[in-house]
């Protein structure tokens, strides 16, 4: 039935072929979109069509196919620019994913601008991919990694952030939407404060990009990292957005073909943006898929997706939270996309196996956020995360699945 803005869950679901797959004799209930989203047919077709009809290398050949491949590659860059409201498509750098985007910034901007005794600030709810690159940088430079703590609800303690900020702060890198708790952080406010001490800002948008419109001008971040595969696109392609002036001043990340203007054995002149950061033959098919994913998401409308997922989130908090013996982890003020919970006396891994036997795919573990688990004093949680294709009926299946866990482990 169409929703208020023409969001029709049945027609959305029909576009995802994997939803017809049976798992262990049951219709798949896919509640692991925070790990990776499923792919609509248009994305699968775009990749397949690219290889069937347009496969060639980009920016090299004078022949027609090379031009077609280049067009596909550059059209997706422009679509990405529009998606996040960047000023200039040269601010859009293709990378493998969020992890590579953050590593790129740490290795280039970070090495250039962070020195001994300086601070890099992250939050207590970062994914390991927004911790480890900064740790490596800080270790190399003799700098300090400072962590904004969170409270028992899973909200950042903003007074502590204020206290950590100083003229030694060179970079503030924070997650927009926590993959383990679903917390939406007040990043606009944080980045505004970061600017007052002259720090550069990086937004980890891996989880937020599929759930809400990200406007890099409004948030005013210096860098934004996100992955195609959580945004209904393929794996292996992701985006680093950076402000033009910053990207221009940064040294290259990797050397090779594509990123040069001229090479002699004495000296190499680097290419202009964005090519400077795109050494080697890129994941062209990935950009074909990502372009199709962005078109697909735009057609459905991220606002419609957000409204639908809000219904799912509220329903799951009420339904799963009401089960005796289930404890929801985190109760942030602003949240989206995921619920994390533990079941009394049953390890999340065992919960995951019992649910899987009923065709229900959830994530059990530390979600690459071990400091979050340590904060709540638990080794792991069960996480159900939502995509545009999920239904309240599937949350009922999860509810029944948890009842089955009690039967097995009673």
């Amino acid at each position, binding site marked *: 039935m169409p929703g208020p803005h023409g969001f029709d869950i049945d027609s959305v679901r029909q576009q995802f072929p994997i939803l017809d797959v049976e798992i*262990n*004799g049951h219709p798949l209930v896919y509640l692991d979109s925070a790990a990776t989203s499923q792919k609509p047919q248009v994305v699968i077709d775009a990749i397949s069509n690219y290889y069937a009809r347009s496969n060639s290398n980009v920016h090299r050949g004078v022949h027609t196919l090379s031009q077609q491949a280049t067009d596909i590659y550059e059209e997706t860059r422009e679509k990405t620019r529009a998606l996040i409201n960047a000023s200039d498509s040269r601010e859009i750098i293709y990378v493998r994913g969020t992890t590579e985007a953050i590593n790129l910034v740490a290795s280039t901007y970070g090495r250039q601008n962070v020195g001994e005794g300086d601070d890099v600030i992250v939050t207590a709810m970062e994914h390991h991919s927004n911790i480890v690159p900064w740790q490596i940088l800080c270790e190399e430079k003799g700098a300090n990694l400072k962590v904004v703590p969170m409270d028992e609800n899973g909200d950042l303690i903003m007074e502590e952030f204020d206290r950590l900020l100083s003229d030694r702060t060179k970079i503030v890198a924070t997650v927009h939407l926590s993959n383990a708790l679903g917390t939406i952080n007040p990043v606009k406010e944080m980045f505004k404060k970061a600017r007052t001490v002259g720090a550069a800002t990086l937004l980890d948008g891996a989880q937020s990009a599929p759930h809400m419109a990200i406007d890099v001008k409004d948030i005013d971040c210096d860098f934004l990292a996100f992955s195609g595969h959580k945004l209904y696109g393929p794996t292996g392609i992701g985006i680093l957005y950076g402000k033009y002036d910053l990207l221009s001043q940064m040294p290259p990340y990797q050397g090779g073909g594509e990123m040069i203007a001229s090479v002699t054995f004495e000296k190499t002149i680097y290419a202009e943006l964005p090519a400077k950061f795109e050494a080697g033959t890129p994941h062209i098919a990935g950009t074909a898929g990502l372009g199709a994913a962005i078109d697909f998401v735009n057609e459905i409308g991220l606002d419609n997706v957000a409204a639908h997922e809000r219904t799912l989130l509220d329903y799951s908090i009420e339904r799963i939270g009401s089960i005796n013996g289930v404890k929801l982890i985190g109760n942030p003020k602003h949240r989206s996309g995921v619920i994390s919970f533990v079941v009394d006396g*049953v*390890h*999340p*891994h*065992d919960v995951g*196996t*019992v649910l899987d*036997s009923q065709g229900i795919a959830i994530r*059990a*573990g*530390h979600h690459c956020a*071990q400091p979050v*688990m340590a904060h709540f004093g638990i*080794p*792991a949680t069960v996480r159900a995360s939502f995509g545009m294709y999920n239904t309240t009926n599937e949350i009922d299946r999860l509810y029944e699945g948890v009842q089955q866990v009690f039967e*097995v*482990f009673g």
Partner: protein
Amino acid sequence: MNDLSDLYQEIIMDHRRNPRNEGLPADHTHTADGFNPFCGDKVSVAVKIEDGSIIDVGFSGEGCAISMASASLMTEAVSGKSIDDATASFEAFRKLLTDGDTSGGVDLGDLEALAGVRAYPTRIKCAILSWHTFKSALENDSAPVTTE
């Protein structure tokens, strides 16, 4: 389709509810810690060895039903055995989990209850963690064991 009751057999559920040899013997001669970074399971194993035989063994840790039951079953399986026999049991158990092979001539006893884990490749590490940790303790390897 996998039947859950093959995985969570009664023996396993019993060892999970009532773990045997929980706690590390104070007068142990060998000890090691194990960790599975994939799921966060942790186990410590301590062994008292005299004249090449395992006089006492205990474990502590936290983890899923499979890892904790396997640790409990492991302590029962090696208790009182010579180091060589315990090592043979480990090899036979590993073969059971990875190949389904029971042809080694070693009587695994209750350990065979864990054969169902073979159908769940992601859970094999849970079942084997305590054994790797035990073996590491025998070798007195001070580095923590991981399943990765």
